[in-house]
């Protein structure tokens, strides 16, 4: 049995289901409402597939005004609301319950404006992350945060979870790359926060909306920063005989005053799984590998690589392989970005997302290995080493309830360790339902109560994405 608890369903809402569906039908176009069981089934889970709950109904609005009408209706009818982008959350951030309606943003997927002179794009929340970079790529620009799910995940979901990605080491995460949002509150107000300009005019509400996991309002539009790409970029593979050497090399590169665009770590098991899937030319005879990406003109990349190579050699690097073509670079990144999918073909897994200070990486890796070994489980490590954001993939058999329990326990032990080492529970996937009950490991009651009071300033009744982020018994005080 899965162990994450859900609060009891509000029977009074269920009892009014017919009337609620009729009420929604009256304010939406016919294709904007899904009420039948088969249709709703597609929205019962996200990428945390071990947990599934059928929503009361699903609405698919096309405009902010339709979202506002639905929100007002839900407030008046006392119905819970779960916003949803593409449903790629790894932490259960978009999993509904039977007493909630899902607002899916999939029909709001237009790019509204591209302004290269002012270096921003204004998009609807249902636009995929990659679609933005593709729309401006031929002009040499891109949208910087690049989660591995960027082909599918939406900008609205990225904002909800403050998503990261491999290239955040240089360019920052979502919150550093969003200039403004259009937010629909539970009152049905349409509020514009920020705009094409830099920085906030009053309190930085955008800073609190980014990463709020859909609990402050429904983001329907976003103004995002566009970044001019460097002249060129090149990933290089560094293979090490000892995992410890690789992680110390990461700290030495950063400590040496070099900030590569990306610095990714893979251990032997992860290399093997990804190489079998992507045929990226990863070295199969090493214990650990770093993918380090540098950018700039040829001479600049060569000079930076020389510095990085010298550090890697001082840390006993065995194999160094530089990408020689754009196609090779694409293969190298494909291998890395398909790590979760490729692992899923080999075994069931749960993916942890804790961050530790980079100086503690060697210890964190060793202890994560020991924790999994103690439960008799295998673990593959593939993660953003430059910022200490670990992703241990704990392999188990989903048909074996004992193993599933062990895997979840091992994951929780690893997260507790991340906090103990001075890090945090989640670096980029969000808390969702998955890590909700661990929040007290990182925060005091006063910390949590303060966060909950800020949430209540936007949604006093707690109707938006309920039972996420905060322990079920936590109170705003």
């Amino acid at each position: 049995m899965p162990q994450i608890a859900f609060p009891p369903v509000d029977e009074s809402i269920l009892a009014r289901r017919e009337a609620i569906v009729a009420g929604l039908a009256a304010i939406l176009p016919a294709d904007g409402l899904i009420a039948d069981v088969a249709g709703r089934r597609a929205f019962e889970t996200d990428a945390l597939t071990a947990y599934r709950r059928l929503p009361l109904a699903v609405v698919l609005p096309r405009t902010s005004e339709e979202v506002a009408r639905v929100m007002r209706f839900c407030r008046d009818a006392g119905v819970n609301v779960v916003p949803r982008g593409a449903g790629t959350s790894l932490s259960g951030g978009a999993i509904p319950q039977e007493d909630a309606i899902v607002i899916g943003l999939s029909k709001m997927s237009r790019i509204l404006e591209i302004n290269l002179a002012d270096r921003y794009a204004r998009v609807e929340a249902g636009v995929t992350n990659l679609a933005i970079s593709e729309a401006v790529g031929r002009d040499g620009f891109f949208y910087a945060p690049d989660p591995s799910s960027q082909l599918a995940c939406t900008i609205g979901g990225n904002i909800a979870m403050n998503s990261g990605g491999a290239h955040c080491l240089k360019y920052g995460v979502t919150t550093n790359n969003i200039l403004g949002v259009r937010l629909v509150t539970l009152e049905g107000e349409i509020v514009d926060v920020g705009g094409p300009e830099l920085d906030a005019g009053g309190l930085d509400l955008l800073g609190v909306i980014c990463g709020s996991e859909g609990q402050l309002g429904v983001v329907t539009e976003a103004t995002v920063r566009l970044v001019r790409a460097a002249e060129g970029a090149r990933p290089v593979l560094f293979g090490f005989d000892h995992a410890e050497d690789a992680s110390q090399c990461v700290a030495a590169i950063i400590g040496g005053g070099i900030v590569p665009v990306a610095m990714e770590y893979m251990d032997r098991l992860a290399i093997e799984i990804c190489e079998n899937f992507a045929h990226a030319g990863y070295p199969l005879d090493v214990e650990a590998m770093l993918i380090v990406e540098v950018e700039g003109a040829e001479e600049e990349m060569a000079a930076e690589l020389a510095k990085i190579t010298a550090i890697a050699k001082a840390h006993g690097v065995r194999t160094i392989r530089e990408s020689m073509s754009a196609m090779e670079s694409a293969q190298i990144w494909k291998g890395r970005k398909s790590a979760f999918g490729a692992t899923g073909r080999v075994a069931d897994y749960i993916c942890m997302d804790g961050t530790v200070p980079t100086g503690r990486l060697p210890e964190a890796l060793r202890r994560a290995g020991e924790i999994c070994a103690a439960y008799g489980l295998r673990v593959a490590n593939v993660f953003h080493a430059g910022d200490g954001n670990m992703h241990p993939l704990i392999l188990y058999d989903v048909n074996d309830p004992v193993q599933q329990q062990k895997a979840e326990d091992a994951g929780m032990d690893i997260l507790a360790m991340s906090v103990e080492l001075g890090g945090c529970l989640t670096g980029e996937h969000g808390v969702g339902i998955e890590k909700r009950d661990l929040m007290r490991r990182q925060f005091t009651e006063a910390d949590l109560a303060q966060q909950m009071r800020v949430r209540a300033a936007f949604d006093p009744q707690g109707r938006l994405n309920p039972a996420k982020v905060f322990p079920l018994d936590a109170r705003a005080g």
Partner: protein
Amino acid sequence: MSVAEISALAPADEAEAGEMAREARARGEKLDIVGGGTRLGLGRPAEGARRLSTERLAGIVFHEPAEMTLCAKAGTPLGVVEAALAAHGQMLPFEPIDHRTLFGGAGEPTVGGLVATNASGPRRISAGAARDSLIGLRLVNGRGEAVKSGGRVMKNVTGLDLVKVNCGAHGTLGLVAEATFKLLPRPQAEATILLRRLDDEAGVAAMTRALGSPYGVTGAAWIGPGMGREFSRTLLRIEGFADSVDYRAERLIALNADLGAKHALTGEGSRSLWQAVRDAEFIAEPRQRAVWRVSLAPSRAARFVARLGAAALAHFYDWGGGLVWLASEPTEEAAAVVRAALAPLGGHATLVRAPDDLRARVAVFEPLSPPLARLTRGVKASFDPDGVFNFGRMHVGM
């Protein structure tokens, strides 16, 4: 009132600060937070009965050079932080403005003041604002509770992010007791390409072209005629490893050959120019003028200034045009002209320097739409329900 009663409170730690906040709240008293006192002229005039000083909340908590992070208490002088960073070839990424140039006066800027004002400089266009480098903080809220948010790691999405909303909140949500920043390596070299005699439109166009190039421009400013030279100057800065800077400077000069680019300023010549841009030195005098900081889409900057007409006594652009520094008469009429000129263009204007009585009469920050005002009031109340800290510093009655 006795001398003891009107003297500043100076807590030695968070617990004492919390106690003071609780006592003030119980008495219905308001407190104004003071650090080094170099930015006191920012925001609406202080309304508090007493000052609460961060002078005893001082010191670097940790500096991890290999992790590129630093944590310091609020009252730590910025000079102390910068010296510690320089010893390891590091820096705060956002090039914080030193407000002493605008306000005059003595005092040492502190970490707390930098956080409270989100004090960012020219490098904001490439490295982000103070809020982007701030990864964690500890706060004493208006209920007297010590609260933390964020931490010491670069990637952290655990719980609601209360870090950024406190950066630039001018102390209205509470006393920031401790702040953790991510750092950058100090660039080995810098170079500035200088273009002469471009008017506003042409200057912004040149900056836009440079910022749209792949050469990693980290500063783009336009300084008007009569500001140190009789002709206007458009400045484009690049930073990094020496060989890379040489290469990109050459490329940028080639890109701007049509505008008369010839050679690059390096070293001290470049550094002192950018310090002057950072601190708005070009419009600091005469002292009696009001000074505004206007953030808007760069392509609208020249139009905004044109709409001001004679109300713009002096101006220059930073952030490629995305930031307009403006001097006006210190009057309500001039303030109304600034607000009216900006309204159709979007963006926001902050009255950075003006006499107290003017800052009490006109909106210092961009006026809030009704829903934004409601949310702002709610967030303030969630931290500080009775308005103990810096009440009215940003908006009347909040």
